[in-house]
């Protein structure tokens, strides 16, 4: 091969622009730190639902995938049994998580990998940055990974002078568009093909090979533009960063499911591979993959099988990276594990079926959830990983109509409505939680004082019949004077509802007067 002539130098062969002069890279909006200070879900959603392009994009995409998923699932007549087995495997793993983490560490180490532990995002980012710096490289190629988005890795690396290039097509669209992800599987789901074309045409040249002059909005043309743009980055990359869908404790095997081949590029071409994975991603045995390799592709992309799945166990002589680092992150997971109701959220395999089916997600879009985890799963995961201290996290358990569609489609049977109700109670009533490994009691969130006062008053009235009767009569007689909306703290309630009309007499008076309705017709 050495006799073939070298390719002509391309724009992308040039070193990446230095941070100081780069017009686009870093700091990007859209990773964990930038979500801080997000408005509450209702306020963010109010803006989102007025965006008709966004609503059309989301409606089109979610309905497309919804129908396909139903077909892919219907092909397997044992779906219910697969779902139940998936639930049991994950529950078993979580209840023995300490044991399986130790087993995983031992098997990865025995296979030639190095295991690191990170208690939070900051520690994980520092570990990865140090590992990259130790290689002497200043750029990394990345496989799409929720964990690295959650910890804001790209920004942390940028602060250390390291460029992180997203290589998944949707992540690339988000990164080039200086945007925030809005979906677990397809972070650019809020963008249609016209918008993607414009982003590529405008932004690619600042990051490497420019988009072709005559780029159209045909999906195949856009995919081709991404192929050409990223090719140079893959071929020269020395460090790859990934997450993982599964880690097998028994063998030390990591598994990444993907479609485009960008994952394979990042996992096999670089000399160093760093995988950042949440501690809950373990399955005990090799055999357990037989469940999830059937349920995950059908639930996420509605395929019998996704185009590419890579599995690697430590390092292999002369095939793939020469050094492999696994960074296990907690970042709120053990706190979530301590909640008896909420811990089931840790079963999640990030398929995104619950987003695609959700009527609230379809209308509000992913950005309103103020987290890299949007949709129903995000509404129970974010407030547990981050706590309910912020306005956005306290409002997320309410980002649902509790219709239950998310539970029905979940391939590991997470009862999302149950956890939502549990978290609502926690927000309104306060109560015991674990934060940073310490058991504590939180106070009721602000903004729910009026609701609690109203509930207390109702409880007192219904246990004092005389008071209730007097109150009801008073309300009926003054009904013409009632306003249509409530003043003060009640205003929030009537902002989206009409006050129910008051009947002319209380039910009990009517019952007595009409002899239980028997005389009512006279």
């Amino acid at each position, binding site marked *: 091969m050495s006799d073939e002539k070298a390719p002509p130098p391309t724009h992308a062969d040039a070193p990446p622009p230095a941070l100081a002069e780069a017009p686009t890279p870093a700091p990007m909006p859209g990773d964990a730190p930038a979500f801080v200070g997000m408005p509450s879900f209702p306020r963010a959603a109010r803006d989102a639902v007025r965006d008709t392009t966004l609503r059309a994009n989301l409606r089109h995409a979610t309905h497309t995938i919804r129908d396909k998923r139903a077909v892919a699932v219907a092909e397997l007549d044992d779906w219910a*049994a697969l779902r139940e087995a998936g639930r049991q495997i994950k529950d078993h793993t979580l209840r023995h998580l300490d044991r399986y983490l130790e087993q995983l560490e031992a098997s990865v180490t025995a296979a030639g990998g190095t295991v690191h532990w990170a208690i939070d995002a900051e520690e994980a980012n520092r570990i990865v940055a140090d590992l990259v710096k130790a290689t002497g490289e200043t750029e990394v190629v990345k496989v799409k990974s929720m964990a690295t988005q959650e910890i804001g890795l790209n920004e942390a690396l940028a602060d250390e002078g390291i460029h992180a290039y997203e290589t998944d097509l949707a992540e690339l669209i988000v990164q080039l568009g200086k945007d925030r992800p809005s979906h677990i599987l397809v972070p650019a789901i809020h963008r249609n093909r016209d918008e993607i074309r414009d982003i590529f045409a405008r932004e690619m040249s600042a990051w490497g090979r420019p988009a072709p002059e005559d780029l159209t909005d045909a999906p195949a043309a856009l995919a081709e533009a991404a192929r050409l743009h990223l090719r140079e980055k893959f071929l020269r990359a020395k460090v790859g960063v990934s997450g993982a869908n599964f880690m097998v404790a028994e063998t030390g095997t990591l598994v990444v499911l993907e479609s485009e081949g960008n994952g394979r590029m990042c996992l096999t071409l670089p000399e160093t591979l760093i995988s950042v994975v949440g501690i809950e991603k373990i399955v005990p045995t090799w055999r357990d993959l037989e469940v999830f390799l059937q349920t995950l592709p059908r639930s996420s992309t509605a395929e019998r099988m996704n185009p590419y799945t*890579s599995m690697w166990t430590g390092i292999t002589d002369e095939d793939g990276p020469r050094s492999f680092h696994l960074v296990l992150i907690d970042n709120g997971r*053990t706190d979530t594990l301590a909640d008896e109701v909420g811990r089931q959220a840790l079963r999640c395999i990030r398929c995104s079926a619950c987003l695609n089916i959700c009527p609230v997600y379809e209308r509000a879009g992913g950005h309103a959830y103020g987290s890299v985890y949007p949709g129903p799963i995000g509404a129970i995961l974010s407030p547990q990983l981050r706590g309910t201290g912020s306005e956005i996290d306290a409002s997320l358990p309410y980002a649902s109509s509790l219709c239950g569609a998310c539970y029905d489609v979940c391939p590991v049977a997470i009862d999302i409505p149950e956890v939502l109700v549990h978290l609502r109670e926690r927000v309104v009533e306060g109560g015991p939680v674990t934060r940073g490994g310490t058991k504590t009691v939180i106070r009721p969130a602000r903004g729910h004082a009026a609701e609690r006062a109203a509930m207390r008053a109702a409880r007192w009235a219904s246990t004092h019949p005389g008071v209730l009767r007097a109150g009801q009569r008073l309300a009926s007689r003054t009904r013409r004077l009632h306003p249509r909306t409530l003043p003060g703290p009640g205003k929030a309630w009537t902002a989206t509802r009409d006050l129910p009309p008051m009947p002319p007499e209380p039910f009990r008076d009517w019952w007595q007067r009409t002899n239980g309705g028997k005389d009512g017709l006279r």
Partner: protein
Amino acid sequence: MSSRDLILGRVRAALTDVPADDLPYERAVQRGYRQEHGERTLADTVDLLAENLADYRAIVHRTDEAGLPELLARLLAEHGTRSVLVPRGLPPHWLAASAAEQIQDRAEDTPRELDRIASVVTGCAVAVAETGTLVLDGGPDQGRRRITLVPDHHICVVRVPEQVVSSVPQALGRIDPTRPLTWISGPSATSDIELDRVEGVHGPRRLEVILAG
């Protein structure tokens, strides 16, 4: 205290409410699902593999052992392939009829060098009929993972029926987890634009599968 010990300690503290459970793992999970879906003869299973491969836009050919060299030569010629990447243990007679220059898979080649080669021919470890999947395990006739990734045209030979299984559970039972594994279901694709599937991104855009036997 190290972060490792801190995390393990937090896990244990988080689980204090959970009753002790010493059930062996084999009994802890009820595996009520099927080991394969439907009842088929071996020939039916091979047909299903062909059907599902084609459904995800792989191009499927059938031949017997004797016809393999002819067919491979024709497919490479039709693609305009002048140089073809070959894993070390590929049976030599497979490419005996092809005029394309054969380039051995070598550890020292750079990805950039591989990028200049048009095609790659490999065998596989096992093929899964229900999902239309080829599993490569880096065996002698498959080579390093990257050689089936960088060239734009991959021809994969499946020996039928012996390398074909019905289902994912059966496939996992045949594979050695410690080997570097690649599961391939159709050419590279994406659903990232409006959640609609488009073939052809970073992996080989043309995947041809020869069912030989």
